[in-house]
């Protein structure tokens, strides 16, 4: 297959940035999208140009490093996958693919397609944990958690922190990300003690990072590689209201 790429190139945080066109020849449908970019990059290096920078690591959809806007969709076409799981068989010979970094003021572009998502870590720091000190805890089976509760907590805990929810949201809202953690710990008995403070602090931090607010378009749910449901956002809202009383 032959693919034309329109890639966002930006030297560093201060650079304006622009689209640059590249052609990828000899693309195999079995290639992953990132492998296709690897091949383009090898070509660029050989020509003495700087390769396209993008975050990636595990390439099996779990580390959450990769993420780019591909033809206007976070992580590209398809549901329930991260960029690294996208394969070229999802495209056709002769296609033009536009690749942009996640866009959000809370995710400043570092270079090309790499963005800074440390705002997520700062939100987690504001309470995305239970204060269980090493060693001072009861036996695992001393805390009984019925399977449906454990399962629902797991659904929320599956978040990989990739930022696709923010990227896809018309408001750059981080509600799905925040709700996943709040919901997980609100469901589990272990999270009860800090329930009130957690939701308040995490939302305050989310606002401080200048993420937008949720307008319930559910674009986040549609693009989440782990298909985390917006019912967790409902739970987050409920937790937040309840925390006021």
């Amino acid at each position, binding site marked *: 297959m032959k693919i034309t790429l329109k890639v966002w190139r930006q*030297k*560093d945080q201060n650079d304006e940035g622009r689209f640059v066109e590249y052609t990828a020849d000899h693309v195999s449908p*079995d*290639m992953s999208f*990132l*492998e296709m970019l*690897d*091949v383009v990059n*090898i070509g660029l*290096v*050989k020509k003495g*140009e*700087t*390769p396209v920078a993008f975050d990636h*690591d*595990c*390439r*099996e*959809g*779990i*580390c*959450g490093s990769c993420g780019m806007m591909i033809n206007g969709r976070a992580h590209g076409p398809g549901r*329930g*996958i991260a960029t690294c*799981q996208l*394969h070229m*068989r999802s495209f056709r010979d002769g296609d033009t693919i536009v690749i942009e970094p996640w866009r959000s003021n809370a995710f400043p572009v570092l*270079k090309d397609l790499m963005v*800074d*998502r*440390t705002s*997520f*870590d700062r939100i*987690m*720091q*504001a309470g*995305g*944990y*239970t*204060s*269980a*000190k*090493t*060693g001072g*805890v*009861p036996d*695992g*089976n001393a*805390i*009984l*958690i*019925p*399977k449906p509760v*454990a399962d629902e907590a*797991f659904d929320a*805990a599956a978040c*990989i*922190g990739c930022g696709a929810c923010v990227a896809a949201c018309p408001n750059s809202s981080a509600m799905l990300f925040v709700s996943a953690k709040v919901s997980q*710990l609100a469901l589990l008995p*272990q999270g009860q003690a800090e329930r009130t403070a957690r939701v308040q602090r995490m939302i305050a931090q989310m606002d401080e990072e200048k993420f937008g607010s949720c307008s319930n378009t559910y674009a986040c749910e549609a693009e989440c590689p782990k298909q985390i449901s917006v019912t967790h956002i409902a739970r987050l809202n409920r937790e937040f209201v309840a925390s006021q009383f």
Partner: protein
Amino acid sequence: MTLDSKIPGGPIDKKWSEHKFHMKLVNPANRRKYKVIVVGTGLAGSAVAASLGELGYNVLAFSYHESPRRAHSIAAQGGINAPKNYSNDGDSVHRLFYDTLKGGDYRAREANVYRLAEVSGSIIDQCVAQGVPFARDYAGYLDNRSFGGAQVARTFYARGQTGQQLLLGAYSALVRQMDQGSVKFHERREMLDLVVVDGKARGIIARNLLNGKLESYSADAVVLATGGYGNVFYLSTNAKASNATAVWRAHKRGAFFGNPCFTQIHPTCIPVTGDHQSKLTLMSESLRNDGRVWVPKKKGDARPAKDIPENERDYYLERLYPSFGNLVPRDVASRRAKEMCDNGYGVGSSKMAVYLDFADAIKRLGRDKIFEKYGNLLDMYKQITGEDPYQVPMRIYPAVHYTMGGLWVDYNLMSTVPGLFVLGEANFSDHGANRLGASALMQGLADGYFIAPYTVSDYLASTSFTPAPADGPAFKEAENTVTASINKLLGIDGTKTVDEFHREFGKVMWDHVGMARNKEGLKKALELLPKIRAEFWKGVKITGNAHEINTELEKAQRVADFMELGELMALDALQREESCGGHFREEFQTEEGEAKRNDRKFAYVAAWEYAGAGKKPVLHKEELKFEYVKPSQRSYK
């Protein structure tokens, strides 16, 4: 220098508790005066940084990732072992100890392995308290499954994402300490040198990957938890950035390298599709609980799987190992798959794959149950291959997965450089020559939560420190070494990319230092590898400069270190004239084709000392004594 493993005396089940009692302590009020550097924030790194932070030490944590949550521990799928005996099937600390030692083919220290088994139960408790959503039954109790190399169900799991959930648990403990100010996290920093002052590890040189600046950090102890070096082979299940640079540079500063040739090849990975392949994807070993491995009985049978009738299929693992069946340890399963393909029974277009079939399990348990147990894995397979594993059997082939070797450490997890501790996959310790499934997460967290916090404290309490400021001569010297090496790389301006060199080097490693090794091949590797390395230093092309985000430069440094490490692996494999676990020397096998150990000559840990550039490394041997388990020929029949 003689190796002192510092194994405490006394009976094996009392060693750790006695040892802990005799350790020196640091008064809580004095702890914040001590600085500890933790490099790597995966399971072991996050756990130790959080635990030391909780104790009150001043912790500096480093990762080349933007966030601790990106560490490759996150990709572990199957589970974590603990001898809780919740399944009432006769499990105990002693049995886990025994299984792990035996699984490692008797090339690990008894005392370390026992301690690992002993503390592993606490890990489950700790993780549950953190909110890790382990699988539960309807009554709310923790659920277990069985794993390769064990006949009890002792594996705790969180669907196929156990590593993710455990890492997020450790990460949550870490961010809590970051919030409280006891841990300062330095993101996107890559450790490029260890600084040794007066014979003690006192700091690191790290490159800020965002602007290329070299930064010096001084401390009282340095903890490395930087993972394994499977990416030496280029194609492995490791994440793209996983590298050996931190441990290799520490090695060059005096830390011995233990058993570098012990590599684990994981039997269930998705086969290679073409030259563009950038990495391999693992399918959890847990799939072998319900999936059946087979090949056609007829050589070169090109019929699609569904057209091959039952009586023309060879379920070779069940045939060869009736008692363990599809659940034999990884090294055995891998080697048998390779053997089947080498003999012409392989399937798929490349013929380098065997089937892993769920048809029977789907018939027995129903599609829903299989989905619930393995849904995300099967989806992952479908996404990558475009084939539906609910309809056609999966194709699998072994791939490099884990390295049992690593920096040599004593019982306290301290390397041969005083003050340098090494945790998790980065050290050589507990898995011997082969790691059992669901034991990597166990070891990383055991080291991080329950061992290193004690032993690091003991070291700090019992050592007197002279000031070692970050602008001192040792730091300057290390910084200059790093700068020189970076400049040298950038000055080459050759014609081949880093990836091309890496691929070429990795191919030689896989062909000759891979799943099956022999003297001739290893010697050939030792000829080829230095040649590729020399070509690399003459012909690599790296664009950009040192003062910006430069991913090519990052890769080049890592590959340069892999190339040196790869040679050491070949050298180590050559000297070990026996087969054990993942190290299979074709010259040394039983009549049935199983690994044949030579306990008389090789019951030792090979610890290699760096002797300087271009000089042959020096081999030191730590004899392994077995007092509680009598080494026997492993049998899974």
